[in-house]
């Protein structure tokens, strides 16, 4: 197997994993076709593209992925889902504000992320991880636009994001499990 073929297989495998960011219905309908189109495009770029186009290819794909996945996710939300997304952004912004005013203490920020994601997981138990991903990025990256570039390129900000994601994910999954448990119990009681 040539190096180019290995790169092609790895690229397609990585892209297949990225497709989990799209809504399940969209993914079920277009996953195979999207991987096929990605494979054709990558194959053409590796075979016929200039070095510059090969360098640009992952950037173009990242741009395409981020814009289309977020759009499809937002379009797939109903009114309740959209309300939860707005609430998650509000919680994230508040946690960011608290974090900014308590530079030495991390527990208030982590508590807000944990409780907020727990409540959202409780309200909307399907795909709870999305609430964690909707809250956490605000904490290291929210603020004035002027120093946004510095924060995005700062390893410290990404480390904070990784730290904040842990309680957010725990909270959202815990809320979701409790809600599902309550639902299950209610069904069992109803049947009995």
């Amino acid at each position, binding site marked *: 197997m040539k190096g180019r073929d290995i790169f092609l297989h790895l690229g397609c495998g990585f892209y297949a994993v990225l497709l989990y960011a*799209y809504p399940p219905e*969209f993914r079920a*309908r*277009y996953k*195979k*076709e*999207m*991987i*096929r*189109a*990605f494979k*054709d*495009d990558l194959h053409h770029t590796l075979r016929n593209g200039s070095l510059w186009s090969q360098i640009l290819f992952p950037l*173009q*794909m990242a*741009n*395409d*992925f981020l*814009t*289309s*996945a977020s*759009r*499809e996710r937002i379009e797939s939300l109903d009114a309740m889902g959209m309300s939860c997304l707005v609430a998650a952004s509000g919680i994230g912004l508040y946690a960011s504000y608290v974090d900014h005013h308590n530079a030495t203490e991390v527990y208030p920020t982590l508590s807000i992320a944990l409780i907020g994601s727990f409540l959202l997981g409780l309200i909307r138990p399907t795909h709870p991880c999305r609430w964690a991903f909707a809250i956490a990025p605000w904490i290291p990256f929210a603020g004035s636009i002027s120093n946004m570039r510095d924060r995005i390129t700062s390893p410290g900000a990404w480390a904070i994001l990784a730290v904040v994601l842990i309680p957010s994910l725990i909270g959202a999954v815990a809320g979701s499990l409790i809600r599902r448990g309550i639902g299950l119990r209610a069904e069992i009681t109803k049947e009995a």
Partner: protein
Amino acid sequence: MAKGKDPRSLLPLTPAVFQILLALSDRERHGYGIMQEVKNQTGGRLNPGPGTLYGCLNRMLEAGLVKESDERPDPELDDERRKYYRVTNLGRHVSRLEAERLEEAVHAARLKKLLPAVQSAGLDWRVG
């Protein structure tokens, strides 16, 4: 959904949707074929990736602008896993209306002298 729908209610089209309709106007194409054609007809300025393309196709299928094709142009030469898409009558009508809308915008820009005047067969847009 497409039946009885006013084509003008779908205007204006996004550049990506309009270019996809143009790419499908002469023949049926599969996803990568559409990507290549859009890139060619816009001189590389619009280069939709798979996410953008299938997001647009999903909305266009729902609106009845395109449909999946039952026939394969050349089954022996082609990968049978590919799906082909073709433009519907509504899609053709809407793309014509969008082209007319853009033509009117260009005409208005010429009248305002933002673009140079052009004289072509049967059309004289010179001003002044």
